[in-house]
C-alpha cells in the first residue's frame, strides 16, 4: 500500500477516482494455507484458472505458471478441481507458515 493520506487529501466521499485499483490492495494476507504448483503433473487443462474466485492463477501464453499470492485467499478450490496427470495432482495445499 502507498502511504496513508491525510483527511484533506482525500477524494470527496471516499470515491476511488480511477479504475483497476483493486490490484493495489493486497488481500492474500488472511490466507491460512497456500497452493503449491507441481508443473510436472500439470496437463494445462486450466480448470484451476477457470474456478479460481480471485483470478489468482497466473498464465503465460495460455499456460499455468503459478499463483498470485498477493490476492490468493487459500480457498483450495484450484487444488480440489485439479485432475492432475494420472490422478497425481498438479496443485496441493500446504499450511502457511511464517
Amino acid at each position: 500500500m502507498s502511504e496513508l493520506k491525510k483527511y484533506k487529501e482525500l477524494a470527496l466521499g471516499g470515491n476511488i477516482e480511477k479504475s483497476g485499483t483493486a490490484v493495489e490492495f493486497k488481500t492474500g494476507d488472511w490466507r491460512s494455507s497456500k497452493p503449491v504448483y507441481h508443473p510436472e503433473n500439470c496437463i494445462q487443462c486450466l480448470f484451476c484458472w477457470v474456478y479460481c474466485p480471485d483470478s489468482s492463477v497466473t498464465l503465460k501464453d495460455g499456460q499455468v505458471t503459478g499463483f498470485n499470492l498477493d490476492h490468493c485467499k487459500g480457498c483450495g478450490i484450484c487444488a480440489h478441481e485439479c485432475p492432475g496427470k494420472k490422478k497425481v495432482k498438479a496443485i496441493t495445499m500446504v499450511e502457511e507458515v511464517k
Partner: protein
Amino acid sequence: MQKIILAKTGNEAMALAMKQINPDVVAAYPITPATEIVQIFSQYVADGEVKTEFVAVESEHSAMSACIGSCAAGARTMTGTSSQGLALMYEMIYIAAGLRLPIVMADVNRALAAPINIHCDHSDTMGCRDAGWIHIFSENAQEAYDSMIQAMRIAEHKDVRLPVMVTTDGFIISHGMERIDTLSDADVQSFIGKYDPMMHLLDIKKPFTVGAINLTDYYFEHRRAMVDAQNNALKVIKEVGAEFGKKFDTNYGLIEKYQLDDAEVAIVALGSTCGTAKVVIDKLRKQGVKAGLLKIRVFRPFPAEEIARALENIKTVAVLDRSDSIGSFGGPVFTEVRSALYGSAKKPQIAGVVYGLGGREIDMEQIEGLFMDLKAGKIKADSVSYLGVRD
C-alpha cells in the same frame, strides 16, 4: 423580479418549490403528513410540467437508496418524507451524507411511534441530527418555500457537498394555508443555476468507484472531512441567504433575533412556535415586559458562536424543545445551546422546556405564562421542565 402572491399550505409551497427547481429525479414514498408534497409533485410529472423522472418506490428505504443512486449518477435529486418514513431511511441517510451527495429532502416533522401519532414534533429529524445532513427548520410556509430553493444551492456548493433537509411542522405548517410570495420559474432557475455534479457515474470517460469500504485506515478521515464541510456550510448558508435577500427581498441567516438585543427574558425555539412567540412578545412589550426570541433556523451546522453571542446579555433564557432525548439532561436544543454558552464569560441563567410532543398544543397563553414565569424566577436555572403535560 416579480413576486406572485398565492395562498398555499406548507406542503403545496414545498411541492411548488420542487416544481420550479425541476430536479432530474424524485424518488419518494408517501407518508402522513408529507404525502401531499410528492402527491402534488407526481401530478406535475404526469402533466408534463417538469422533466423529472419520478420513481415511485415501495418504501422510504428504497426512496433514499434510489436518490443515492441517481445523485451519484449525476442527477439533481430530491425527495420528501416524515417521521417513520425518515426512520426507515435512516441507514441510507448516513450513506447519502458520507458519499457527499447533494440530495435535498422536504421533511414534515412528526412524532415517532410508539404510541402511534401523526402530529408534529421534531423527534424524527432530531434522530438523524448526527448523520451529516444540513438541517433547516421553517417557521412558516413562506420560509419552507424559500429554504427549499436555497437548499439546492447550499447542498451543491463545492465547499459543502452535503445533503440538506428542509423541515416544516407537521399539520401546523404542512396543512395550514397561508399567503406566500412565490417567484417565477425563471427566477428560481437562475438562482439555483445549472447543476455541476463534478464527478458522476454516467461519465464513461472517467470511471470511478462509489461506496468503497473504508476500514480502520480511512473511515475516520472521511468523517473528519464532513466536519469541515459542515463548518464551511455555516458561511455558505449565510451567503446563499444574503444573495436570496438581495434578489428577492427576504434575508435568511442561521438564526433570527426577535426583540432580543435588549431583552431581559428570552426563549429559544425552532419552527412554527417562533411565529406564535413573536405575537406574544409584541403583546408583552406593550406591557413593558422586555421579552425576546432567538429562533434557530439552522440546527446543523449548529451555529454555536452566533447563539452564544446573541444570548450573552440576557438574564434568563428558556430553551424550548419539541422533542426529548429520553434519558438525557433535556432535549437536544437545550443541551446544545447550554453547551454553546459554557465557555462564555457572560451567560444567562438557562433552563430547558420540553413541550408539544406528538402535536400537543402550544398556544399564546402558554408562551406568555412561560415568559412571566421566567421573569418571576419561577423557572429554576439548569432545570428541565415539561410544559403542557398532565402531571
